[in-house]
């Protein structure tokens, strides 16, 4: 148990622009991601070499009224009649697609596999999106009590504040940091820093002849309940990830075949997955996910690396509290050291261990079924020194990690990457 029979490499990675696109459906988003992925493969590659598709998608059924996306996307990629499967584990859907593809290659079932993730969320009104996302929580024991998705993470946030003295400013710091990174990512939905958003609101007020808001700085702006209201106390608007349309793809192959397509493949050396109780109230800890701890331990063991070896990571910051939960669950910081790490900028682009250089779910956007693969796309770019804009980290990344959570933690999948 816990060993891959063949080593697996990523040879191409790409994503669509993330955002709200009224005129694009799942097919268009997937096509855009696929084109960017194929263009990222350095040497001659033809789609006919792909033997199967693994596609992550949470709920196109409810979001778009279109189910069964895998053969639809396979057809678009010219793969018909090859195998095409969809995985659904809420927001971890495409992280699981990646893991299943790795296992299939390692087992020798296929040599070259296309992995994708897609979600088209913005066709529904807010209440419809809220209900669709909440269907990944426990319907009987949580949803009927009125809990929403931001509400579930807010429960974890209140618990962490009470246990570790985390403040609402700590959550704001994470939002500011991820927006700052996202501002440098041309694929991000909100590629604006919090300061830029604040200034554009001031300019808008002036233009309309309204009283000019007197926010002193980003923190002051985020403290203003009219600008940054509680969606679910203590989580405010700027603590929540976005409702996003988007897609992302990867092409995987074996270590042996990889060099035929690129001189600089990225190897996936560890994969792990775990589960947690469905309802938050059944958990032994209200600020940790056993799914993530288990997934991380499995991946670290397979990769033969320790948390201290991880230089950068894309973690599942669907809410700012989730980034703090991840920092502890992955063993990257001691749980009682996380407040300090956030306050002192350990996780910033120029910090000791940058987290979410892409802008994370907070700023890059969170098309739920595409998120897991999009995290791997960022790691692929960062490890090859190809991250656009000024978000490329200044050091050589030898070892990196992605952490993709489904629901309020019911599922988690972790991957570890090496050059």
């Amino acid at each position, binding site marked *: 148990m816990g060993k891959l029979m063949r080593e697996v490499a990523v040879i191409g990675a790409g994503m669509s622009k993330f955002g709200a696109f009224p005129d694009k459906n799942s097919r268009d988003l997937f096509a855009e991601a696929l084109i960017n992925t194929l263009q990222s493969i350095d040497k001659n590659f033809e789609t006919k070499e792909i033997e199967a598709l693994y596609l992550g998608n949470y709920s196109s059924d409810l979001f778009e009224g279109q189910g069964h996306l895998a053969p639809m996307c396979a057809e678009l990629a010219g793969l018909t009649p090859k195998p095409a499967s969809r995985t659904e584990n809420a927001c971890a859907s495409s992280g699981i697609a990646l893991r299943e593809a790795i296992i299939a290659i390692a087992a020798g079932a296929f040599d070259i596999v296309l992995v994708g993730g897609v979600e088209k969320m913005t066709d529904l009104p807010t209440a419809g999106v809220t209900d669709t996302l909440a269907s990944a929580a426990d319907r*009987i024991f949580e*949803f009927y*009590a*009125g809990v929403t998705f931001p509400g579930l993470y*807010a429960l974890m946030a209140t618990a962490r504040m009470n246990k570790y003295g985390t403040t609402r400013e700590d959550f704001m710091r994470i939002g500011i940091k991820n927006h700052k990174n996202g501002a440098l990512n041309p694929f991000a939905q909100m590629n604006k820093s919090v300061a830029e958003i604040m200034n554009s609101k001031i300019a808008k007020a002036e233009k309309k002849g309204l009283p000019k808001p007197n926010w002193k700085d980003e923190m002051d702006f985020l403290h203003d309940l009219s600008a940054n209201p*509680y969606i679910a*106390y203590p989580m405010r608007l700027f603590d929540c990830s976005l409702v996003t349309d988007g897609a992302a793809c990867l092409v995987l192959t074996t270590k042996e075949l990889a060099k035929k397509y690129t001189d600089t493949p990225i190897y996936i050396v560890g994969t792990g997955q775990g589960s947690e109780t469905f309802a*938050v*109230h059944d958990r032994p800890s209200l600020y940790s996910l056993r799914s993530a701890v288990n997934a991380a331990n499995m991946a670290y063991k397979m990769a033969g690396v320790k948390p201290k070896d991880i230089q950068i990571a894309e973690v599942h910051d669907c809410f700012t509290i989730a980034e703090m939960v991840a920092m502890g669950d992955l063993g990257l910081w001691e749980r009682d050291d996380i407040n300090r790490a956030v306050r002192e900028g350990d996780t910033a682009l120029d910090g000791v261990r940058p987290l979410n250089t892409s802008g994370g779910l907070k700023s890059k956007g969170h098309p739920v079924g595409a998120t897991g693969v999009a995290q791997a796309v960022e790691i692929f770019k960062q490890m090859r020194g190809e991250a656009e804009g000024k978000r490329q980290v200044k050091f050589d990344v030898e070892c990196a990690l992605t952490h993709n959570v489904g629901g309020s933690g019911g599922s988690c999948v972790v991957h570890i990457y090496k050059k």
Partner: protein
Amino acid sequence: MADITKLNVYTKDYLDGIDNKILYGSKCKKCGNIMVPAKVICTKCQNPDLELFEIKPEGKIATFTCIGVGTTYFVKKGYSMKKPYCVAVVELDNGQMITGQLIGGDITYDENQDPLIGGKPIKVGAPVVGEYEEYKEVIEGKRGGPQERDRCRLVFKLK
């Protein structure tokens, strides 16, 4: 190995209990583990042979949130960003936890932007007591159109 054929407590038993204003946990006949809300398999020893066990809906707030953007059901009840509602995870007196709405007045925020319910601060550790709120559930009937059914929800109040 768990013998799943011995399964004798179902989620329906729990929901029927709530509708009859009784909070049921389940008790493992093998190891004595008590689980609330009622589970169908022992969370400690995986034994499916359980019995229903009545629990007093009293305890303290383990964690909570005040929700501004609610689910459709709560939005229809009149809740909004301007009129949020509170949901708490309550640690019952036997240590088990359960999720329910905290009622007892409007949610407002004090000068430190911390929440109040009916003017009283909401704090982790605050003692609460449960009560049952009656409502009508509309079921889309197969024949003769929608039908109404009397249901109950377990909600909590500050003591």
